[in-house]
């Protein structure tokens, strides 16, 4: 049981890192586009 919750905690941290990475990527790419034009 406790293991289950621990894994849930790890999984949620992992997914959050992924989401943040996608947002950072969008910020960088769009920054590049703005500078380009």
């Amino acid at each position, binding site marked *: *049981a*406790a293991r289950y*919750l621990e894994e*849930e905690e790890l999984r*949620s941290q992992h*997914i959050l890192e992924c*989401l943040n990475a996608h947002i950072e990527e969008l910020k960088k790419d*769009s*920054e590049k586009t703005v500078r380009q034009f």
Partner: protein
Amino acid sequence: KGLEEMRAQYIKAVSKIKRDMLCYIRESKERAAEMIKAEVLRERQETARKMRK
């Protein structure tokens, strides 16, 4: 100029999506914890019953 605005809007939109996802994930963790707590409680009652027998 317009591009800057568009960029800000897009970034705001994805941040909102992320906030909503955080909310969903937190709720699902709470639900899992509830489920486990109920499970442990049932186990305890079960054992208590056996002890009494």
